[in-house]
């Protein structure tokens, strides 16, 4: 309906291959960015940053990472929480052991550690598939949980692995107000979203998808499963690791291994399923859905006068049924709904 594509013809492949080939889309995205970077920090109340925006952004990042692995490369993983933990504790160790190391470097190093662990636990994917792999990745989850609980060195000998960081500082910009934290996350999220997009529209991304869609055919056209899968594990884990570091440093501030337990893994998996496998945008939709929904449900239930215990049970139930509902109603997630809607707008007033 809003699309006026006449005259938007492409005279070069560069123009044809850009991320948003349609001008109206470019404008929309631009508007969104302005909103996110300028309007929101200026207007939003603290609660919004703390309770919704920051967790949303960080979890989007993690979901994005997971989506690379599950959505684009078709390798299911239940070890996400563990990898986030690796990211968080890795970054923490860098920070406490190397003095004067910039925050960004620490965060990225967290990602690097996560990538290493991810690749390690990705090796089985060369032999095993699907559900078997899902369980194999649980090993990563539990092993990480355990390590940060029991291996004291990793947590700098703090009791029960609970650590904390304070006074975040990015190259002289001290990040302490929620708004600033939000901006830091936003910045990184946008960056990684762009990087991910570039990767999946590059040949490495096509290799991942080829493996996902038809691994035999992929092998026959010369794609090495080893390289494709492990690179997917690496990239995915790296992003997840950074997200984990952010979760610890920026959102929690002080945390213990429990913050990254198996539930986190499931939560992230839900995000990409509901948001849409194999879609960058879907990762954001899913994160938004799963961050906001429980809050609404909780408050709704409490508002309806249930005591909190019952409220939390109700939340679980509604949550569970919603997941099922989504799987039945739209297996391809919110991203698909979005895509369909967009296509309808482009064809408007015609149905097809």
């Amino acid at each position, binding site marked *: 309906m809003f699309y006026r594509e006449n005259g938007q013809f492409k005279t070069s492949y560069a123009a044809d291959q850009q991320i948003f080939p349609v001008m109206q889309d470019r404008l929309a995205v631009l508007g969104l960015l302005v909103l996110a970077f300028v309007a929101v920090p200026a207007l939003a109340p603290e609660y919004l940053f703390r309770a919704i925006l920051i967790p949303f952004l960080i979890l989007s990042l993690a979901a994005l990472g997971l989506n690379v692995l*599950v959505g684009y490369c078709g390798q*299911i993983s239940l070890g996400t929480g563990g990898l986030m933990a690796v990211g968080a504790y890795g970054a923490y160790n860098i920070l406490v052991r190397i003095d004067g190391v910039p925050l960004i470097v620490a965060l990225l190093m967290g990602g690097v550690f996560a990538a290493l662990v991810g690749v390690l636990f990705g*090796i*089985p994917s060369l*032999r*095993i*598939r*699907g*559900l*078997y792999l*899902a*369980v*194999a990745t*649980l*090993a990563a989850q*539990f*092993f990480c*949980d*355990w390590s940060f*609980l*029991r*291996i*004291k060195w990793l947590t700098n000998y703090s009791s029960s692995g609970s650590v904390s960081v304070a006074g975040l500082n990015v190259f002289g910009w001290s990040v302490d107000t929620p708004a600033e934290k939000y901006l830091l996350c936003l910045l990184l999220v946008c960056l990684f979203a762009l990087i991910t997009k570039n990767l999946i529209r590059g040949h490495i991304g096509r290799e991942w998808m080829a493996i996902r869609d038809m691994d*035999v*055919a992929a092998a026959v056209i010369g794609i090495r499963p080893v390289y494709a899968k492990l690179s997917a594990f690496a990239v995915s884990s790296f992003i997840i690791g950074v997200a984990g570091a952010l979760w610890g440093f920026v959102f929690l501030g002080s945390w213990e291994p429990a913050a990254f337990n*198996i539930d986190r893994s*499931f939560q992230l*998996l*839900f995000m990409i*399923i509901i948001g849409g496998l194999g879609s960058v945008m879907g990762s954001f939709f899913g994160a938004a859905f799963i961050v906001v929904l429980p809050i609404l449900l909780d408050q709704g239930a409490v508002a309806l006068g249930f005591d909190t*215990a*019952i409220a*939390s*049970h*109700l*939340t*679980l*139930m*509604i*949550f*569970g*049924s*919603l*997941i*099922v509902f989504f*799987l*039945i109603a739209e*297996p391809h997630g919110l991203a698909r709904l979005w895509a369909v809607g967009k296509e309808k707008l482009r064809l408007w007033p015609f149905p097809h």
Partner: protein
Amino acid sequence: MSFVPTWERQTDMGFFLETLIGGLMSGILYSLVALGFVLIYKASGVFNFAQGAMVLFSALAMARLAEWIPHWFGFQNLVLANILAFIGALMIMVVVAWLIEKLVLGRLVNQEGITLLMATLGITYFLDGFGQLLFGAEIYKIDVGMPKEPIFLLEHMFQGGILVNQEDLAATVVAAALVAGLAMFFQYTVTGRALRAVADDHQAAQSIGIPLDRIWVIVWSVAGFVALVAGVIWGSKLGVQFSLSLIALKALPVVILGGLTSVPGAIIGGLLIGVGEKLSEVFIGPMLGGGIEIWFAYVLALFFLLIRPQGLFGEKIIDRV
């Protein structure tokens, strides 16, 4: 399992056997849960994450009904109460099974494995919430009047003998009986054979007129029954509480080890894991700072997979081009 590892005792054989038996005991329970997985996976290709939630749910039902029923009908007979409660709980599980088939799986036929897995995760959340909403969220006791006091075996062989819980023995017997029963059921009943047919080939089964949806309800009911038994045993040992829901996670490496589609695999895998876990905890654990139970099973399963991707008894997959 409640025992204090003390360095001087570890050396002797008796202690080793004791640990071994302890492992077998918990292994039996893993096997029971794993059995639930395998049944459902065989029949409907669903990797049922909700098995743990079903254990919790059924155990809760059993525990609370055992309290409520006497007080509804005003009698004190513990045995009778337990029997009624068991039947009640079983009926509830059948209803649950039926609902799951009708509302969820029936609408997700020929979706990919991962989708179905997610669906069962959804069911897990639902059952956890629903169970606690319905039956309460505290810790409840199931008292089926199993003998509690430990006994000592083979005292003439080792000094001090081997300490074994009668309860565990009972549990073992029950579990074994259950497994045997299921085996019989699969071998000799019409439904059992139908189930096996379905497991082997859905289309074929359908084409010879086996009603898939009914079969699936039955399978889930059976799984529910297995869950119930597991729940009762576990519950009567450690009490019914939310953590029960998590034993599903323990059962995963078991099925992987045993092979997703193999009943004996589930049993043997369970025992292996149970034993391996205990022994490793006692003999390797201390060197690693303890608590390795939580991952040992998985890492074991993982390494095993690298050698034999389809598990102990699972069948090999050849992809045609």
